[in-house]
């Protein structure tokens, strides 16, 4: 594993799927596949990132993503530090730059950042000397989530092209949806988005997604059904009449699922609102639901990304490979 094959991946930061090529994506997923096997062994620790410092800088609370990145870094032998920055909306920006400059002075090698504002991660990447990895910025991108979704799909379906993928729910506020649409389009799959008009961003058709307001029609013939969490904390004002009407029209249940292909898989980035966007029985149905698998793939994908980025950073700055 220490002699990983040379990859074409030549990025300093991972800020979004938008900037990746299909080759980049395949390189990450191929490497992640190796790590899936490794993670299933009893002894999981490697020293690929030994000596490197990874800081998880989270301006928004997160349990699973932060844990996943922490584990990924530790399994590769990096020194991992978690920083959660509580921020009021007024002082948020100041905290961002000030914190970035402070951390930068400590010479981290990998900075994992989550922030509530779209583009905050780009701003930070301009100010620091290390590799920046976007762990979710505002509504814009959450690249490792899309990559772990892709890995899950590829392992289940054997491919990423010519699939019909339906993304359902709160597309407007979702960075997961945006990253997934970019990725699936790059890999030549077809994306449908299913949501009420109030939860769809303008111009979404031009992204390369077919729009459905009717969930039954939208799910017809789908290979993959990706549910999104209703982000009630981001909803100022009236977007839907009630969660019960939302579940009636857009919640995934057995009857709506009938339209999808028989072997269709069900995904959810978590955390789930059971009974709001997904029926509890379906979420727990291990023949169709791959929600647990997504979490497993998350660690592997993040290990792959960390390794690929670390390789480039050390080459660029010190002129020495890891």
């Amino acid at each position, binding site marked *: 594993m220490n002699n990983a094959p040379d990859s074409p991946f030549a990025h300093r930061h991972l800020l979004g799927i*938008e900037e990746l090529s299909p080759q980049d994506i395949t390189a990450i997923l191929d490497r992640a596949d190796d790590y899936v096997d490794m993670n299933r062994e009893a002894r999981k620790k490697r020293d690929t990132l030994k000596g490197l410092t990874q800081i998880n800088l989270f301006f928004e609370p997160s349990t699973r993503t932060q844990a996943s990145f922490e584990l990924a870094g530790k399994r590769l032998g990096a020194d991992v530090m978690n920083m959660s920055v509580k921020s009021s909306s007024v002082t*948020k*920006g*100041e905290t*961002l*730059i000030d914190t970035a400059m402070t951390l930068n002075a400590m010479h981290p090698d990998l900075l994992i950042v989550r*922030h509530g*504002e*779209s*583009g*905050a991660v*780009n*701003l930070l990447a301009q100010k620091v000397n290390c590799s920046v990895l976007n762990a979710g*910025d*505002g*509504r*814009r*991108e959450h690249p490792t989530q899309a990559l772990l979704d892709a890995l899950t799909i590829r392992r289940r379906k054997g491919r990423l092209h010519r699939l019909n993928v339906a993304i359902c729910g709160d597309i407007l506020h979702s*960075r997961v949806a*945006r990253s997934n649409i970019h990725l699936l389009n790059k890999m030549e799959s077809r994306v449908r988005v299913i949501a009420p008009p109030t939860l769809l*961003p*303008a*111009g*979404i058709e*031009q*992204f390369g997604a077919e729009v459905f307001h009717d969930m039954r029609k939208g799910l017809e013939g789908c290979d993959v059904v990706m549910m999104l969490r209703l982000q009630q904390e981001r909803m100022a004002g009236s977007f839907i009449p009630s969660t019960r009407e939302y579940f009636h029209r857009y919640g995934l249940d057995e009857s709506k699922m009938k339209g999808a292909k028989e072997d269709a898989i069900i995904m959810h980035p978590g955390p789930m609102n059971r009974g709001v966007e997904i029926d509890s029985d379906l979420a727990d149905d291990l023949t169709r639901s791959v929600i647990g698998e997504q979490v497993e793939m998350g660690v592997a994908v993040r290990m792959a990304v960390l390794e690929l980025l670390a390789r480039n950073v050390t080459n660029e700055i010190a002129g020495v490979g890891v």
Partner: protein
Amino acid sequence: MTRLALTNAHLIDPATGLDSPGGVLVQNGMIADAGERLFNDGLPEGAEVVDCQGKILAPGIVDFNVSIGEPGARHKESFRSGGEAAAKGGVTTIITQPNTDPPLDEPAILEFVLRRAQAASVVRVMPTATLTKAAKGKEMTEYRFLLDAGAVALTDGENAIADPVVFRRCLEYAASVDALVCHHPQEPHFSALGCATEGLFASLRGLPEIPAEAEAIMLTRDIRIAALSGVRYHAAQVSTAESLSVIRRAKEAGANVTCSIAVPHFSLNEFDIADFRTFLKVCPPLRSEDDRAAMEEALADGLIDVITSAHRPQDEESKRLPFAQAAAGGVGLETLLPVTLDLHHRAGIKLTTLFERLSLTPARLVGLNAGHLGKGALADLILFDPHAPWIVDRKDLISKSKNSPFHERRVQGKVLGTWVEGKRVWG
């Protein structure tokens, strides 16, 4: 009696359509004469002579929409720095926004501003006052007193007045004192939510969006209320094609309506923001390419009356933030002319047309006898080379704030000399 003879120039006079070689004679700060054969019989005795070497001599720009940081934010722009930036940019009169700290909503503050401006600025400063107290859209200010103290128009700046009842009363009362009312037509319920125009760009970048319709919706309301009141209404910073059709209909119906555009809205579109460049965050937000192109057409055919810089100095810290949190606005006094000249070079719009929008019309709106080369007009003049190429570098700006949306843009047109009432203030 001081005399200044500007010879061997190429004259542009938007009032007469003059676009030919000639000269201008200035006497006691006013234009004594101008024309093609003015100095054919020799130069007047004792006059200071400036040989313009065939470059363009035009009436100085009257910039209708400028923010200066006094009082309250002198570190962003003072009357001294703003005045020098204006002179360098060919702007001889700045009409200032009232959104200062404290806001210009009382005669005493207005008098302070005028005193400061007179002492510090090399160009003429004409302040506006707020339409409502603290520009909060609730209570009327003292229009008669404010006009008497020197306000040339009433406006709440970039704050739109949401309440139609308040707005109507303001306009009706303003009509009774014959005030010019400028309003920024953005439905505030929409614009409070976002920082980018709704559409593909905002969706791709995940930026909170404002529908472009927020402008035409407010403008439609404004024009109807303005018609009820009979006031002189000016829509500041129109930026969408839909707004233009609202304006067109109103003008065709004979309404007392004028409008202005800020330079970024005919020279940039939303995709220029690229990866969250906060210097391109302006208010209203940059629009689609279709809207931008419509602006250019409307400037050619005269639907848009005035071109402004919408000069908004912001310090580094307020721009070095995530896009949604960054302050809006860009400095523009020094780039107003060269970026506007692009419409001449690229789109073939005549210089006389451009100077009608830059100088003549805004001067007329505030009752200033300037913006043309007629006898008796104030000798506010600029001499410039329309072809001189340069690259905008924010570090070279005179403005205290360096937040130019045109940083690194290649432009043509350099001001060689600026005169305010016959006194040379630049070059």
